[in-house]
């Protein structure tokens, strides 16, 4: 039997052939890298972030112009020195001294200008980057949760990092571009001024480079993009191998994967070599053109000097200029790509900034008073993420201060939505949600957050110590408070076993703790928040019986003396509640305690009698049968 299966999996005839169903890594280009080179709307939006640094920008532009000016002047000084101080047979030490003095002053100014320009621009660009990121991050704190739900975190992170960096790069280079532009114009003007016809002749090679680059740029960019892309592909495959290494080894896929990875790495190598060719081919072109310009200068200019129609100093100055004049053309054409990238990034940044904030405090919103009673009431609440398909329809119920209510119902019945409304994560379409007798829309969201503690189904912990996690935003909580809370929920013992106890650093999202342990810490966090109302979404995942017991115990403690609303999945929790509200299709169909509901023989009793340890274990088919029956019963 073994030999048979062995053969089936590795047919020798397949050796070397790529298996039809195998891939490694996955990479899809998800976003446009380049946009329009210029988009007025985006530029004006981005300008809003640059505005505060307008003074710096003006200083930088002035400095860059001064810097460019000194660069243009230096060859002129050399020319003056050669023509007036040195040659002509005459010995003019004063002129030489003057030339050297002028040179000294110029380089001092050059130094100062380059210092000012680079540091001012560099720092301002960093500031703009951080401001922009902060504005975006701050905005995300306020946008509706439904936006956050449907947007991947990774996508937002690339807004906050990659796109913002593109903008920074754009800002830095655009000031330099101003200098490049000035240098280009300056060189042309000075050369024509020194000798018009010679200038014109020498400059004639310049358009050649422009034309070459116009043809070269799109092809080169394609090659560079291909190199970049194959890099991402290969790196993605490596990352997959790292994260999935145990699965790979369990299924003995190493050989197949290696072959496939080799394909990708080879493609990457080829793409890089092509890109390299494109990058380097410009070198001989620029060098040849420079050589050509110098040759023209020497032949034409030289004969002009011989005929005494030109000073030799002018020729030397020309030589200096020629060696410089391709630099600005090169960097200006590159700037074009930077601009396109920045516009694409800017487009995405403004998209995030434009996400509407649905829920804001009213101008006259007040804090929920500290002595509010802790009651929660739904009055004729209708609500839907899509107004046409409400998930809650005319829901009415009241939870009295100190009472524990379990919300029960099949998936999609509206349990989680009800919870979200209490905290005003969303606004109702119709009706009212009252907390402590006040409409949640009339009080500040901040005070609502202080009075309502929430425990979510998936316990989310932050990187940091156990202590910081339990205290979270309640910075006034002392160590004693934290330890007390942990003891109450039964987390103290395992915390003390961690190296460092309460100061133990939690891994990424609490990765070094088990699900049950994370749950207990999130209970402690809710306890420290010390709110009058506790909203809890019970975890559905199967936790081992030992931890489960601890959690059930903690739950009792947590709910003591508070108004509790629990989305309950476990029978133990449901039966422990003072009252049970059964929801179905966005409507309250039954309320009462366990015994009353059992006597009623409605949906609840049907579900209960199916005898599953948790309502989530009930298979869909049986659930459907039960709800249909119950539906008939109520109508």
């Amino acid at each position, binding site marked *: *039997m*073994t030999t048979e299966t062995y053969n*089936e*999996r590795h047919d020798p005839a397949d050796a070397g052939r790529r298996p039809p169903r*195998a891939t490694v*890594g*996955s990479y899809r280009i998800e976003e446009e890298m380049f946009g329009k080179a210029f988009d007025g709307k985006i530029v004006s939006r981005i300008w809003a972030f640059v505005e505060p640094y307008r003074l710096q920008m003006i200083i930088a532009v002035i400095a860059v112009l001064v810097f460019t000016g000194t660069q243009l002047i230096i060859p002129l000084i*050399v020319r003056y020195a050669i023509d007036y101080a040195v040659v002509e047979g005459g010995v003019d030490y004063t002129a030489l001294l003057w030339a*050297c003095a002028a*040179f*000294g002053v110029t380089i001092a100014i050059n*130094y100062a200008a380059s*210092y000012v320009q680079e*540091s001012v621009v560099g*720092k301002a660009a*960093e*500031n703009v980057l951080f401001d922009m990121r902060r504005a975006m*991050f701050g905005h995300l704190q306020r946008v509706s*949760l439904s936006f*956050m739900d449907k947007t991947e*975190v990774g996508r937002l*992170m690339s807004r906050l990092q990659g796109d913002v960096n593109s903008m920074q790069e754009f800002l830095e280079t655009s000031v330099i571009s101003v200098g490049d532009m000035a240098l280009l114009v300056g060189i042309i003007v000075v050369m024509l001024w020194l000798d018009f016809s010679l200038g014109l002749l020498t400059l004639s090679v310049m358009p050649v480079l422009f034309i070459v680059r116009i043809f070269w740029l799109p092809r080169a960019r394609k090659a560079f993009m291909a190199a970049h892309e194959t890099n991402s592909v290969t790196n993605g*495959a*490596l990352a997959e191998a790292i994260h*999935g*290494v145990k699965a*790979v*080894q*369990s*299924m003995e*896929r190493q050989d197949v994967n*290696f072959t496939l990875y080799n394909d990708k790495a080879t493609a*990457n190598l080829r793409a890089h*070599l092509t890109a390299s060719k494109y*990058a380097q081919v410009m*070198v*001989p072109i*620029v*060098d*040849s053109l420079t050589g*050509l310009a*110098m*040759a023209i200068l*020497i032949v034409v200019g030289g004969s002009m000097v*011989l005929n005494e129609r030109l000073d*030799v100093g002018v020729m030397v100055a020309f030589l200096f200029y020629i*060696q410089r004049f391709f630099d600005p053309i090169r960097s200006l054409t590159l700037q074009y790509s930077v601009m396109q990238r920045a516009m694409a990034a800017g487009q995405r940044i403004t998209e995030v900034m434009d996400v509407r904030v649905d829920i804001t405090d009213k101008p006259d919103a007040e804090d929920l008073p500290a002595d509010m009673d802790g009651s929660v009431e739904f009055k004729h609440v209708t609500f839907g993420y899509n107004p046409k398909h409400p998930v809650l329809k005319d829901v009415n119920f009241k939870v009295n201060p100190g009472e524990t209510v379990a919300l029960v119902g099949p998936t999609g019945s509206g349990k989680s939505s009800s919870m979200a409304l209490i*905290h005003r994560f969303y606004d109702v379409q119709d009706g009212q949600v009252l907390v402590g007798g006040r409409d949640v829309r009339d009080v500040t969201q901040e005070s609502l957050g202080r009075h309502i*503690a929430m425990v979510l189904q998936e316990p989310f912990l932050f*990187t940091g110590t156990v202590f910081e996690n339990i205290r*979270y935003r309640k910075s006034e909580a002392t160590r004693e408070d934290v330890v007390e809370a942990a003891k109450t929920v039964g987390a103290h013992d395992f915390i003390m076993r961690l190296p460092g106890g309460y100061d133990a650093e939690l891994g990424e999202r609490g990765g070094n703790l*088990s*699900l049950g342990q994370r749950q207990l810490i999130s209970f402690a966090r809710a306890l420290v928040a010390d709110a009058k109302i506790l909203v809890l979404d019970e975890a559905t*995942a199967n936790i081992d019986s030992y931890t489960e017991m601890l959690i*059930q*115990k903690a739950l009792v403690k947590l709910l003591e003396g508070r108004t509790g609303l629990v989305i309950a999945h476990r029978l*133990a929790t449901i039966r422990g509640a003072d009252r049970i509200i059964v929801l179905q299709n966005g409507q309250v169909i039954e309320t009462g305690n366990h015994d009353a509901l059992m006597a009623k023989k409605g949906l609840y009793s049907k579900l209960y009698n199916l005898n*599953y340890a948790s309502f*989530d274990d009930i*298979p869909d088919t049986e659930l459907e049968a039960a709800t249909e029956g119950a539906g008939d019963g109520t109508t």
Partner: protein
Amino acid sequence: MSSDATGDAAKRRDAAFSKTYSADKALLHVKAAGWGRGLSTILRITRMSLRHPWQVAIAIVSTFIAASLQLLIPQLLGQAVDQTQTVVTGGEAGALAENALLMTALMLLGVSVARGIFTLLQNYYAESVGHHIGYELRLACYEKIQRLNFSFHDQVHSGDLITIGLLDLEGVRMFFSTGLIRVFLLSVLIGVGAYLLLSTNLVLGLLALSFVPFVAWRSATAQMKLRLTWRELQERLAVLTRVMDENLGGIRVVRAFAAQAYEMAKFDKWSKYALELAHDRVGIRVRATSLMTFSFFAAMGLVLWIGGGMVIEGEITVGTLATFLTFMTILQMPVRQLGMMVNSFARASTCGTRLFALLDLDIAIKDKPDAKPLTVTEGTLRFDNVGFVYPETGDNRVLKNISFEARRGETLAIVGPPGSGKSTIAHLIPRFYDVTEGRITIDGQDIRDVTLASLRHAVAVVQQDAFLFTTTIENNIAYGDPWARENRIERASDSAQLHNYVLGLPHGYRTIVGERGVSLSGGQRQRLSIARTIMLRPDILVFDDSTAAIDAATEQRIRGAMKQYARDRITIIIAHRLSSLMHADQILFVENGEIVERGTHEELLDKGGRYKALYDLQVRPGDEMLEEMGGGEN
């Protein structure tokens, strides 16, 4: 995810450094390699480059030629300037001078074109060598990571491996073109250039070169400082990234606690911290570059002054002065780049040390030299007094005296509290870890004596955390058997109770899942994981707590569908939920690494021990339990 696995992982992570890997693990965190080690790393990279002798030869020769040609340019320019100075005496002499000028111009053009071509060859082949080295290292790195044992991957953070495989590899790859070749270029330029200048005029030559040591020193120190602050900045930015990432990922917690202001304060703190350093870096960079430019121009001014005087005195010609000035402009760029060269060396030695440490790691679990393929006849698995200690914990045995036997067609169940060592037993059978005591045999063959590939074909484990690959559902199911036919895939998927769900998806079996695809629930992931393991048709099938997220009814259906399948193999089930395992032929109750009870479900219930206690805990109605606990507390 089960508490068992994460508990174990946590314990392992917290434990003292391992005996096997501690040295290597420390190496993976090299921040700056020591001199000796750094040097040997550099030599090793150089040796790797020499494996492409032709390309290296072309690159080096081209570098020499290109640099020499570049040095000719100032000479030619000076010559041209001098030629224009020829005192024009008559028409003939004038024509001669013009001819000389034409010659110089043509030579200049020729030299420029040739220099451009050789620079192209130099750069292209230098990069090509780098890309080839990069390619080889990529493959080596991939293969190594694929083969390193579980105990290595348990300890080393995946982020660290990604850093090595991406960034460190890049540092090594860049070394040849940005480090080594540039050293050649710079030495030729400075060496030959200095010789030419100094031999023309000693004083002026010294003045022209005076900026070189200063700029070189400034550039090197500034680069090193920038390198240090860069690393620091990356660390601060990493924290900022984490703050943002966790905030967005945990946005519901943030909103639930109305903690926006708190989170903004946290963001601002780290943002400010990073911004300060970013400003410092701008400062360091600007101070260095503007000072370098200044010193260059200052040297030029001196050459102009002293040289001008010399021209006046008739010691040198105007052309020579022009040669000196042009030469200086040529030298300026490569000297400024010296910092980058130093950086390239530093980076290559640090990155290379880390990368090579990974590549040189010994793989502890591998085939013995004389290993034969496993032959399964009866299909009997035996544990003989097996003991196990995680290499890193040293003391504290995870498993002690584990002995049992299972035959083809049988189901063995293992149950016990979290952290009792159940999963470890599962991981020992395919040799994900090696036993430290006793032995495991399949049909009498010690699993350490057979080839790993044959062993792992015979033993398959459905893991707790089903890692899904970002590809289609069918490719995921056929992961271990990529040649599989469609009907087999569907059968496996049907047995795992996944088929109906898949058919309901818009693209059916072609739906992409995984990180970038449709997200599956925990239960669906586990079902997919079961399906792909069924595909392997192993002789021993282990469910390592891999049904926790599947509801009891579905699990029962899976069990029913696999009844036939289970007849041909040994099935080992590790679970918390007793309904998953009470039908087993033999149940082992494991506590603190030892088997404390064994028998069938009925036998163990009768015994009234720990198994019975767990049973009671799971089946008793909740409120009784609550009352009892409440009573106990008060």
